[in-house]
């Protein structure tokens, strides 16, 4: 094990390296480029024994990793924003084909107008593609999540997206422990899938399926997601035994006696953790629930943790125009069947990479303290 200061993008590259990916296909987009630049070098100098297909688009990138995974190779790609949107069709296809592809996505706002800064709308708008989604809060988690993603994906035959904030993680150096290859090999065995393209056992995959059977195949995809809920926690514990770091579905902080709990994902959650500490020093009973895994959505965990709070704040750095915060809609959905559930205050902030500071988050708690009825949408900091 060694410790290095690396940017989040390189944490993805090291995650792929240590997972011994065999086929990479990628297309450049800011702010993802460093991921594949480093992987290109690793492939070129033989550090990583993989085929790198330098495709002409993200659509082809996803198609190529799909073909590779269907052929029995461990496959990786990374993209961002417009690139992810271009992949959309194939994202659905990879899930339907039940292929354990893992990709990194650097959250970046959609154009127009052009923006290269962070916002989660790109990945959250892929929520119905059937990909598992992990939102990391620091570079160590980025690296570890790639390894964990393959471990879980290859057991349930579902793809996983490891998601990180543009610049706040992608281009920010943090100290990261690089696990030893032997230990990763012990944790993550080689990819084995009996449902592959094999001339010795020929099958057709994905042929026309009539209404008599289509629904059953979709049911199985959903069941695999449900199975992952337990598996993610189980593998998180196995990972902790070997590497000393635990990752679960959610990451609660000072929630046990909290009257107001703020829900957030990604780096905004790290900022919120500090805000919670500062408010606790003032005697405020506040807590934080970071949702780490957005798909499968951990409904039970979210219900269990939030139902005892008096008020729930959801911080969304994303927007579904005409509806509101995407995380908030899931949280409200989770609480809908809880009797006397707490009111939910849905905040939209930080779009297009606008800063979300400790001060802003402390203000959220202070504002909500004074409100009784939940709010479907509150715009924080928008210049009107």
């Amino acid at each position, binding site marked *: 094990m060694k410790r290095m200061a690396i940017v989040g993008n390189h944490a993805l590259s090291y995650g792929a390296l240590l997972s011994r990916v*065999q*086929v990479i*296909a990628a297309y450049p987009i800011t702010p993802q480029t460093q991921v594949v630049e480093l992987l290109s070098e690793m492939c070129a100098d033989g550090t990583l*024994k*993989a*085929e790198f*297909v*330098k*495709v*002409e*688009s993200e*659509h*082809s*990138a996803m*198609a*190529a*990793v*799909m*073909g*590779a*995974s*269907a*052929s*029995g*190779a461990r*496959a990786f790609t990374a993209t961002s924003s417009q690139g992810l949107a271009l992949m959309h*069709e*194939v994202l659905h*296809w990879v899930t339907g*084909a039940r292929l354990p592809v893992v990709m990194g996505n650097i959250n970046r706002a959609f154009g127009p107008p052009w923006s290269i800064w962070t916002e989660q709308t790109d990945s959250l708008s892929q929520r119905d593609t059937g990909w598992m989604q992990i939102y990391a809060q620091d570079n160590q988690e980025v690296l570890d999540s790639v390894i964990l993603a393959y471990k879980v994906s290859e057991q349930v035959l579902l793809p996983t997206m490891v998601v990180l904030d543009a610049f706040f993680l992608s281009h920010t150096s943090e100290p990261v422990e690089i696990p030893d290859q032997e230990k990763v090999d012990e944790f993550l065995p080689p990819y084995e899938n009996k449902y592959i*393209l*094999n*001339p010795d*056992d*020929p*099958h*057709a*995959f*994905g*042929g*026309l*399926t*009539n209404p008599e*059977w289509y629904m059953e195949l979709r049911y199985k995809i959903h069941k695999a997601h449900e199975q992952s809920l337990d598996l993610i926690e189980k593998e998180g514990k196995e990972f902790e035994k070997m590497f000393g770091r635990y990752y679960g579905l959610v990451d609660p902080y000072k929630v046990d006696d909290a009257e107001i709990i703020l829900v957030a994902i990604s780096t905004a959650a790290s900022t919120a953790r500090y805000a919670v500490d500062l408010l606790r020093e003032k005697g405020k009973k506040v807590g934080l629930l970071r949702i780490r895994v957005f798909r499968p959505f951990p409904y039970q965990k979210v219900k269990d943790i939030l139902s005892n709070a008096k008020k729930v704040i959801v911080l969304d750095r994303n927007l579904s125009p005409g509806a509101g915060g995407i995380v908030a809609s899931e949280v409200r959905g989770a609480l809908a069947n809880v009797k006397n559930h707490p009111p939910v205050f849905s905040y939209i902030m930080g779009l297009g990479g606008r800063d979300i500071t400790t001060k802003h988050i402390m203000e959220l708690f202070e504002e909500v303290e004074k409100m009784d009825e939940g709010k479907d949408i509150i715009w924080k900091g928008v210049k009107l």
Partner: protein
Amino acid sequence: MRKLTIPREEYMTPGHLACQGCGGALAMRLALKALGKKTILTIPACCWSVIDGPFPYSAAGVPLFHAPFETAASTSAGVSAAMKILGKEDVHVVAWAGDGGTFDIGMQAISGAAERGDNILYIVYDNEAYMNTGIQRSSATPYKAWTTTTPYKFPKARPKKDIIGILAAHKVPYVATATVAYAEDFVKKVKKAAQIKGFRLIQVLSPCPPGWKTPPEITIKLARLAVQTGVFPLYEVENGEKYKINIKPKKLKPVIEYLKLQGRFRHLTQADVEEIQAMVNRNWKLLLAKEEFSRQIENL
């Protein structure tokens, strides 16, 4: 007696769902005979998405991955990369697509794979329109042809896209045309292409009775006439510059012999036929000139 050059082995099974007289089904049967068992097919949306049979059946007899419309080349690129890293390079990685998935929506991915030199054999069974969706024009539809989106009063206004020229411009090691009427030629080309590394493409003209408005029993006759009239010459291009015409009729038959058999051309006027004849004559001369030119530059 002539020696039989088409392998006896059958890989494609009966029970497929092609229409009677389908050139595309016959093309697959012949291609698999040439390629053998160690083949992986990627098939995007096209007639073959249906022909192969519904889940859980398959008529191909070799592993087959159904892929999104525009991804025959890119999905195959991934299959090919996997075969390399897994040490299974004896497997033929084949993209099998229709003309819509190739000339139109798949063009970008094909250009990418061709330029990279991905180790893929791409076979386009060209039936000259979107037949699976009900006969809509593609950029492979010939000049003046009827389709449901180019009705009789407004038939296709532009000639067929030159896919071979486009691929030749990518300097890929091998591109060729073929058709189901010249089965020995097609099988020979598939076998030749299978032995070459890099990106290879074969365009196999595959008559479509419902789309061309022709009786199913004249599929082979039509495919032969396409060659004999010069409408669809059989030739190959190596490394983007060495042209070779494989079937060279002493005298081309008049195009009317090919056109008059097809309902999709029944609205043509005498002037239309003459215009098409002139285009075919010119294209044939150009092809002869390219062949001659590639001889001249051989020792450049």
